[in-house]
């Protein structure tokens, strides 16, 4: 039997040398280096038209006024000492329900880079990936660990929605006994889900309805999951739109418009998506036209996009057509379900208070760290603190809506099929 027990000297030297070079490369990099996109959009007090000629840049407007809420608790000295004793030498694990490299994984890693600096004791913060079952496995993993603040989970809104609608927790993961710490990002100001039509299809609601009549069928909109606006707009608001499944993300849906397979956009036509993925459409101005704003958020912060494209601000859905009382109430619920930034940071509710306070403060503080803000801006996301109360309120409002005459519509919006 031949067995390799010796490695030749030149080979050993080469291998070790390469490893050493790799180590030097990793260590020699500036650990505080910030990403180098050539047009980093630094936050500006007012949105400007462009930086480069004709190319819109996502310039985040000043943070919108923080919703009225209780003052952020500041750890009092004895709490700080408690926290220091607790977190010194420890590692906080942030469990992400997606594989490495996904959008939320990126957010978590960027946050992890800075979070430890704002927690007394400066614990190490690492990210663990546990994908599967649409974040449920991540939740179960986190819930199986002790309630000591050393495990935080990022959870998508679908889990909150589903538990709220069902009125009960899922196996091994209970969001009714959870503390939502909040989120490290806010919606890009001016980004509101707007129904947009391909340029050759329609320029406003009247022409869109006429086109559907002419074709004798609803207009095709790409979607990547059941539910959401693609489900309820045709079903409850008589908008002639047909959701076409099989798309795997916003980029593929936009490609569908490019390729002529899709005729309208229901979820993907937002300021941040278009400025990130289709600045040429904005520049051209006639590839797509916004028809109505169903999400209902203020579009003025995206004025740069509208100016460059030469578009009028589309009307809100309730201004574009007469709505019944049922439709009005459904619209309000759907807006609250669809409008909140996804993937809040969550811990178990029985975590000791001083730990909860500490983590809450730290998370909020990270969102004002210039390094973190720049890192997020480079990925065209807006750093900002979305308070945990918003998610708890969202959970409760969905549960209430799911109990009344809107129950089926809420289930449809959530994509729940019986």
């Amino acid at each position: 039997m031949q067995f390799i027990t010796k490695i030749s000297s030149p080979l050993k030297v080469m291998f070790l040398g390469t490893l050493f070079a790799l180590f030097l490369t990793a260590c020699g990099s500036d650990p505080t280096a910030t990403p180098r996109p050539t047009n980093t959009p630094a936050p500006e007090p007012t949105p400007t038209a462009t930086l480069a000629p004709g190319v819109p840049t996502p310039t985040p407007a000043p943070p919108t006024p923080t919703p009225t809420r209780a003052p952020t608790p500041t750890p009092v000295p004895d709490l700080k000492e408690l926290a220091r004793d607790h977190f010194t030498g420890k590692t906080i694990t942030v469990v992400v329900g997606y594989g490495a490299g996904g959008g939320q994984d990126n957010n978590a890693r960027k946050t992890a880079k800075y979070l430890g600096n704002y927690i007394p004791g400066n614990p190490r913060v690492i990210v663990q990936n546990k994908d599967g079952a649409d974040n449920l496995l991540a939740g179960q993993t986190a819930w199986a660990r002790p309630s000591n603040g050393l495990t935080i989970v990022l959870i998508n809104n679908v889990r909150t929605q589903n538990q709220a609608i069902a009125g009960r927790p899922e196996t091994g993961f209970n969001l009714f006994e959870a503390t939502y710490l909040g989120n490290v990002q806010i919606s890009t100001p001016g980004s509101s889900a707007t129904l947009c039509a391909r340029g050759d299809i329609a320029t406003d609601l009247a022409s869109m309805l006429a086109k559907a009549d002419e074709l004798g069928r609803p207009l095709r909109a790409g979607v990547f999951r059941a539910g959401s606006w693609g489900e309820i707009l045709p079903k409850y608001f008589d908008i002639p739109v047909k959701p076409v499944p099989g798309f795997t993300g916003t980029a593929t849906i936009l490609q569908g418009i490019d390729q002529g397979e899709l005729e309208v956009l229901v979820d993907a036509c937002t300021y941040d998506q278009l400025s990130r993925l289709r600045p040429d459409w904005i520049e051209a101005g006639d590839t797509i036209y916004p028809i109505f704003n169903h999400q209902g958020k203020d579009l003025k912060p995206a004025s740069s996009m509208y100016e460059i494209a030469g578009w009028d601000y589309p009307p809100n859905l309730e201004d574009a057509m007469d709505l019944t009382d049922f439709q009005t109430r459904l619209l309000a619920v759907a807006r609250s379900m669809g409008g909140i930034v996804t993937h809040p940071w969550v811990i178990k509710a029985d975590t000791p208070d001083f730990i909860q306070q500490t983590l809450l403060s730290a998370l909020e503080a990270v969102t004002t760290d210039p390094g973190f803000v720049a890192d997020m801006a480079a990925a065209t996301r807006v750093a900002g603190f979305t308070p945990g109360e918003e998610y708890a309120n969202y959970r409760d409002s969905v549960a209430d809506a799911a109990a009344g005459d809107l129950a089926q519509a809420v289930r449809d919006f959530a994509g729940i099929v019986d």
Partner: protein
Amino acid sequence: MGVIEAAMAGLSDMANPVVILAILGGAVVGLASGALPATGLPGIIVLISLAVYMDPVVAVALAMGMAAPVQSSDTLPSVLLGVPGSVSSQATIIDGYPMARQGRAGEALGAAYLASLIGGVVAAVLIALVMPMARGVVNLFASPEFLVMALMGVVVVAVVSGGAMLKGLMAATLGMAIASVGTDPGLGLPRFVPDSVPYLLGGFNLIIVVIGIFALPEIMGLIIENRSIATDVSAEDAVRDINEGRWEGMRSVMRNKFLVVRSVALGVIVGIMPGIGGSVVDWLTYAQARATEKGAAESFGTGDIRGVIAPESANNATSAAQLIPTLALGIPGGAYQAVYLGFFLLLGFQPGPRFLNDNMDIVFLIVFSLLLANVFGTIMLLFLSKYFAKIAFISPHVLAPVILSILLVAAFTSKNSYWDLGFLMIVSLVGWHMKRYGWPRPPLIIGFVLGPILERYLSRVLGSYDNLFDAFTRPPSLIIVAVALAIAFYSAKLARESKTSAALLVKKAEAGVADDAAPRVPAGGA
């Protein structure tokens, strides 16, 4: 930034010794990743962890250095062990492994390295040439083309089933059935998932299926047959073969230039079509080689060098070409590219039209890094081959447990669950049975990969076109259909010719003793 300016900027980045070190260091890590069976992703995941702390240019160089040689070094376990080094090196096993058993591992490896190098270099150059117009190129392929490509997989299945076409098609359908476990891609409804097994909501992972169907049965074979991999030659002859065989293998690549060109072209086209992926391109090219090369019907599967050249030319080309839709449109070309997409986002680059406008210099940095890493990786592999080839002589009771351990760890890390291991056992039972009872295994993998693609694009086509005639008479669809029909027709013609010569072989075989290792005589059964 103009193209020339961008190219000069990319070159000036390459003048930085730290960048060169990053590429070479990454290449070493990539070589190791590819050489260990079924462990392609860990390197890039560690890099993602490091990325927030690194200079973006160095990080990109390191990542591309790691990415490039994986598709070359993954040939090592495929040829030497019969275990796929990654999901895109399965087809290499069919002819590469028999070559190793015949003591011709050096020839197989030499051919694979040069073929991979050509594929990688061509695709890297193509990135530079195509990227400015990438969106137009990628947009040529819409839903009907993807559906047709998936259906073309049926042609591939028929070809790689050999003389057991019905069994092969059934295996492919079984693969599609396994792939349907999980959630409905449109509705998110659980499908064939018991309440007590939420693990299955994510479906079966490709790595579990590949390890269970291909890798573990080969390891079992070593123990059951109680022999080392190379049985036909002595260790001394094998070492001599490595030294001479490497060059002979490379000469074989030059002799089969047109096969290389066809395979690279197919690899690039598949790479540009996001989602089809590297896990079927090797079978597609293997099938086209089998269908179009003279004498391939008899010799493929017994150690024909062309059965190594074809998939190896294509898989490097595909993995580089997949960067085109990833960077130009933000649509990942495959599973690895999805991770790379996240990696670029983490560095602060926004793949998509913005990337081409603002970071064209990074595109050229990627191209130059891929070129350097491919060349460096090939040189390293050529140098190391003679050491790796000794693996073929290690006792099965030393090799098998080590490989088995690596595979169990790799399988577990797919979803970090005991269910990974449990289902691995079940899938390996199926793999063992198929190997034992003469069911072709490649069709199962093809069905597993193409099934969801078929489902997804069927939904899109039915939803996006009023008239299927309009969908399938698009020029790109017609071209793909025409190529598929041509392959099918040519393959049938060659099969008819081979039946005639097989009839003569039957008479010769009847005079001799039957040998399981020798190809059985095609008898028209399926």
